[in-house]
């Protein structure tokens, strides 16, 4: 039974990996295991307010202490005109982590590379030919694609397990204004913030879960003892 359960879970996880990598030439990185905290969420929120909120809204995210402290508030969000950007306006990001997953979002910001043929000067491994420029070019620096575009499209057709990580096919051209490790932390905080925005009550949910399960367990023990008492009468 346990074996079966393990196999089942690994199939489920494998399915999701296949699903999410789909046509990308690289595999997704796992986001660093940083423990989320109020301070981290606020600093991730600040990053969002500075670098993302000119273009992207979080329409389902209304006033809350973390949003207020980081400046991510409804009246500062852009009103998005669906006709602008030739019909492909920047999407709302309220649910981006629930839709794409945190690993995808984390890897997303490592997927930019310089490409002179694009109007933005850069291209992207996960969303090819995106019209979104790299918002962190200053902090992060720039990367160069080490393989040809043809090789990229070969990689796209590979099974997920055989795709390389981004750093095998991208090389740093110019270093960013902050050390890479520091950028990685900031980026992780941004992803944590967006994960929070995707489901603000998650912490409350997990906290309540413990109490509910404990209550049910106690009740279960009582019910078990009662059951045993009654069934003794049958012997």
């Amino acid at each position, binding site marked *: 039974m346990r074996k079966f359960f393990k196999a089942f879970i690994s199939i489920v996880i494998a399915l999701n990996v296949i699903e999410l990598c789909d046509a990308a030439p690289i595999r997704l990185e796992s986001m660093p295991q940083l423990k989320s905290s109020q301070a981290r969420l606020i600093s991730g929120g600040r990053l969002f307010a500075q670098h993302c909120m000119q273009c992207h809204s979080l329409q389902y995210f209304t006033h809350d202490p973390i949003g207020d402290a980081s400046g991510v508030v409804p009246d500062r969000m852009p009103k998005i005109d669906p006709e602008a950007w030739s019909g492909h306006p920047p999407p709302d990001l309220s649910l981006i982590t629930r839709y794409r997953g945190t690993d995808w979002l984390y890897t997303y910001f490592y997927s930019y590379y310089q490409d002179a043929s694009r109007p933005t000067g850069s291209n992207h491994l996960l969303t090819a030919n995106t019209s979104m420029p790299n918002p962190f070019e200053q902090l992060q620096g720039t990367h160069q694609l080490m393989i040809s575009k043809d090789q990229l499209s070969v990689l796209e057709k590979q099974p997920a397990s055989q795709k390389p990580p981004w750093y095998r096919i991208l090389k740093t051209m110019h270093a960013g204004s902050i050390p890479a490790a520091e950028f990685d932390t900031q980026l992780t905080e941004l992803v944590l913030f967006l994960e929070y925005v995707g489901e603000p009550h998650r912490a409350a949910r997990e906290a309540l*879960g413990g109490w509910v399960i404990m209550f049910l367990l106690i009740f279960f023990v009582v019910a078990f003892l009662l059951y045993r008492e009654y069934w003794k009468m049958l012997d």
Partner: protein
Amino acid sequence: MSQRRAETSGISDWINQRLPVNQFFIRHLVNYFAPKNLNFWYFFGVFSLVVLANQVLTGIALAMVYTPTGAEAFASVEHIMRHVPYGWLLRYMHSTGASAFFIVIYLHIYRALMYGSYRMPRELLWLTGCVLFMVLMAESFTGYVLPWGQMSFWGAKVIAELFGTIPGIGTTLVHWIQGDYVISEVLLKRFFAFHVIAVPLILIAMVMLHIVALHSVGSNNPEGIEIKDQCDRRGRPLDGIQFHPYYTVKDIMAVLGFLIVFAWVLFYVPEFWGLFLEPANFQPANPLVTPAHIQPVWYFSSFFAMLRAVPDKSYGALVMLSAVVILCFVPWLDRSPVRSIRYKGIGSKIALSCLVLSFSILGFLGTQPAVGGYLIMARIMTGVYFACFLAMPIYTRIESCRTPPKRIQG
């Protein structure tokens, strides 16, 4: 017992002289005899009642806020998740409950197949069950459309197109169902009406028939022998025990166990790794952007794989429909002299295993693209699935069975 009850006066007497409440409970709980050997598999009927209650109660609360319009449906679900006090809890209870319903029902059906609970005299009990299964599918399909995410929209479109494959009337029928030339808010509002009132009414009525049928023929049991054949002088089955208190306490314990697992999923993995709540459905419906993969929720996955296994769409739809309807014929396909798998021969044991295996493999294949080896596999498994049913009259007749005991041992 009855002595004491006769002494109580006042309200309870007043009521009972006018409405036989006590009599009802005594008849259906105390003087209702169930086999003493009902095992783990017999909990799933009660579990489905619990899940049904959960769906109805949380559904009522959700319907107070949810707005079935194209512009607001998706946002109103997010509003429930974020701004309605404990709205997230209600929504997760409902979404987890939907998947739990199917897990519980699949195991409930498996139990009936295992112990031959569909055999004479329980054919109508089984048939009401089959109808319940179909009604439940309608209920969950209409419900899945309501959040109006990408998969809601495109899933509805794929199913609507199936009706379009009916020769002659197809297109007209699709427009009639949709109330529009395309999938639109008109369909959303219709599905809302079906999901919150029409289908639940039928579901609850059918559950009542199911229980009435059960109580008139009595439970089967893992041995597959009739306890009513061996009674004492007062006409009580020798191997039966009073439902109350014995099975009421046992069921309460089991329900609590079930709720612990349910709560664990609900509070810690409500998306269940993308199976209970699919990532693609966290994007609002967009008629202009077709998702890369359109696939139904996990519990329809096996049937979806059968649909795609057939090259022609209308025949595919027919095969998919038959896969459900064939269940109704099982009482007459089974020709075995015994009921329970415990006493049946090797043929039945292999067939039941193949049935479970083919259905599970089809479930997996339904989540994969229907190409190459996957497609061939889906075709083979569809064949195996139907063979398990269609060959039933043969293998149940020729295999050698063991003779069940007259009484339940131990």
